[in-house]
């Protein structure tokens, strides 16, 4: 930081070194990656384009739809309005990290059982938001489910099946699989 401070101290100097790439470390789904990023690069760009994990989706790219939701230090954040630099040294989880090898997580299974997946484009973000909820509150109420998923838009399912999936995954309400 001291170096940085001295650099902005002189305006000319700042202009010359503007927007250089920096090396950051991200622990994505348990694997460390060292990547060069520019200040303007968003987390979603780095995860999808540099690291190559394309499960998280870029949809509105303005923080309104939730398709790019990923966990940063366990918090569900929007990758499209998070600077990658802000995540240096942090633990990140994406949809690719939810299954344990071939074994799907209960919320992934529940999405399939309940017909909570149609086009699938909101699904990765939706699963991440639901995962964060269930880690925090293993038996969420309907209202808590709504509050946890209100930032994830879905145009296909009408949300009912998604709520049922969260209920199934949390073992509540006697929700049984509708698809086999």
């Amino acid at each position, binding site marked *: 930081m001291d170096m940085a401070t001295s650099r902005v101290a002189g305006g000319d100097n700042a202009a010359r070194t503007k927007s250089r790439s920096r090396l950051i470390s991200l622990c994505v789904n348990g694997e460390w990656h060292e990547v060069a990023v520019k200040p303007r690069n968003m987390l979603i760009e780095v995860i999808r384009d540099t690291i190559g994990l394309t499960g998280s989706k870029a949809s509105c790219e303005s923080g*309104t739809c939730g398709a790019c939701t990923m966990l940063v230090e366990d918090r569900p954040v929007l990758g499209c309005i998070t600077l990658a630099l802000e995540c240096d040294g942090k633990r990140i989880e994406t949809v690719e990290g939810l299954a344990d090898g071939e074994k799907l997580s209960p919320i992934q299974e529940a999405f399939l059982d309940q017909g909570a997946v149609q086009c699938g484009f909101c699904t990765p973000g939706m699963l991440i938001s639901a995962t964060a909820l269930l880690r925090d509150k293993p038996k969420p109420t309907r209202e808590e489910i709504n509050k946890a998923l209100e930032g994830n838009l879905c145009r296909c399912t009408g949300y009912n099946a998604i709520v049922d999936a969260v209920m199934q995954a949390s073992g509540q309400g006697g929700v049984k699989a509708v698809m086999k």
Partner: protein
Amino acid sequence: MSELNYVGKSMKRKDGPDKVTGKAVYTQDVKLPNTLIGRILRSPHAHARILRIDTSRAKALSGVKAVITVEDTKGIKHGFVETPRYPPDQEVLARGKVVHVGEEIAAVAAVDQITAQKALGLIDIEWEILPAVFDPEEAMKQGAPEIHPSHPKAPGKHSNIGGNTETEWGDVEKGFAESHYVREDRFECQLRTHGYLEPHVTLAHWESDKLNVWTSSMGVFVKRAKLAKVLDLPYSSVRIHKTYVGGTFGGKIDLYSHEYCASRLSMITGRPVQITASREEIFSAYRHAQPLILEIKTGVKKDGTIVAQRIRAINNAGAFRGSGVVVIFLAWGFTMIPYRIPNLKYEGFSVYTNHTVRAPQRGHGAPKVRFAIESQMDMIAEALGIDPITIRLRNAREPGEQLPNGDNTHNGGLAACVALAAEKSDLLAKFGRDRKSPPKGTIRRGIGIGTSAYMGGTLIYPNGSAVIVKMNDDGSAIVLTGAIDIGQGSETVISQIVAEELSIGMDDVKIISADTDVTPQDIGAWISGMTYVTGNAARQAAGNAREKLLQVAAEKMGVPAENLLTKDKVVYHRLNPELKMTYREIIAASVATHRGDTIIGEGFWRTMRDEPTHPSLATTKGRWTENYAFSAQVAEVEVDIETGEARLVKALTVHDCGFPINPALVKGQIDGQISMAIGHAFMEEVLTKDGYTRNPNWLDYRMPTIHNMAISEDADVITEQYRVGQPYRTKEVGEGLISGILAAMGNAVYDATGVRLHSTPFSAEKILAGLRAIEYAAKNPKPGEKIRA
């Protein structure tokens, strides 16, 4: 063996595991080395002449690899409709003038987004601003700014007519004269958008005289046809690859300029070019649905029987023909299917305005038409003192009824749907309750019904689907289908059919889909016919393979093929199950004794095989479909009469989808349509000003969130059956169920409050204004005023 193992069951999605693990590849996930980024220069004016365009500064920018304008194209036009009456009317880039904000003028390919963006800023254009017009009724007036010349065959007194539909039967004037009660109403709907989560995106790579394209679409063969045409390439030089598609709802059928531009820029640079539309571009420059104005005059007998109906539809079609001329044809169709109308006169106008071009959207006009008709139906019923169920049953078309266009309702179950909906919702007991005896507090509950009907698998290019089933040595099967899974579950449904017909497991079926070079032609996921048309092709292909298996088995076993049956990849003798051969053995035998025949089944299907082509958009003559799906939907709403806020509490959908191949997927379509209809009814509107979009984002364009779901119940009036080896009839279920529920919500708001809304959305502000008007009228009665003549 009549018991079905897979068909008719809620089998899990074939694409499900890939979609919940992030492995499913969408177009934005396809990465090619050395890819250039393309961006499009769009018009900042609604109507202006391009006097001069200079791209030299952009071309000179370091990192820019190509810049194209209309001068770099072959000048070949395209259109959603391409018929002799309605020839293609749009170029891929603007020539000479722009007619809407956001119209594509030029495109650049550069090494990255920033460079591409900078290059757009270096394209110099000299404009001459022209007067613009946005309101369709203003645009129709003589002397309005002319966007394109009126269609040569359109009625002369109007301006800016892109097309019109006229039809009539019986004698409406005589019908009105003979009617006991006649009323005339005008209805309007707001501008809404599709709201697919996946943005428009195209990756094109010209390599070895072949254009490889990945694009978010609703039908790869339609895309190939249009793209090859505007590029002037043979179809064999254009390959559209399969990708998963993140939602479409009608908005990804047409050829879009960015698809051409990515392709052309790749051909020029020899490098892959990707163009992604931003959400703002999608909102402000791409295609929305069509806001209709409907004027309806209806005459009925004392008992509510419709005698005559006259309908005038005006479509604000935007700046090119788009699907505007289709909507005014369909608006007639959605009028005449559910109820008998002995005398009808219909005229529809598709009017050019300086708005963005319009595309089909789920329902393609039906929500607006059914909202209008079903609202008026309730008004008529009230005036006559008839309940909403009786008046609908009185007019509902029967099974086997002949329609004016020559179609037949076959086993259509509208009356059964209405009756079951009434019974399950207890509508007649609830109807009018809160108006008769208002409860304490400010919440009023209301109930309403709406009906709808939708066609399936109508003839339009490519008209038919073919499917190939390749047997593997071990008895499993590879299915080649052009069907594209946009989320509706086509790959799952096709797998169920093939597994059923071949008596193999769901896991034995692997689908190769939606690749124009590899898979046979397919109608695409956009005319509500995939389960019927492609599904029957798949059934036929699998059946064809099964017959070959049985034939070889019969030869080997020395028994007639009709004495054999199949189960779990084994052929048995019907009477002596000990006599059997596995598929593996049969296929080995076929290769050995049938000159290497590995057993490949072929199937193909087309609706209405006696009909030469689709009906006339202008005159409505010609048949439309053999698969009318009917539905009745009930809405229960709550309205806060102090704030005007209304919400859907419960929806009931009773539908006749023929035979449900996968009931859970049917339910998924219903729930999604209820949610979209909630958006239409209470929340969504693209707000525009002078052709600019004021709310090009999801904060201010209010698509339903998880807070806005309602209880959604459904019941299926099953009127068809599926039998192995027999053609089956499924009907439309993916877009017909968005309309009755919209109308039902309008009727339910009325039931709750007495406020009859003639336009959507049913905003709090409109409901409050309606309540005030009622209050005012109650305080200031006008002597001698009739209810409404």
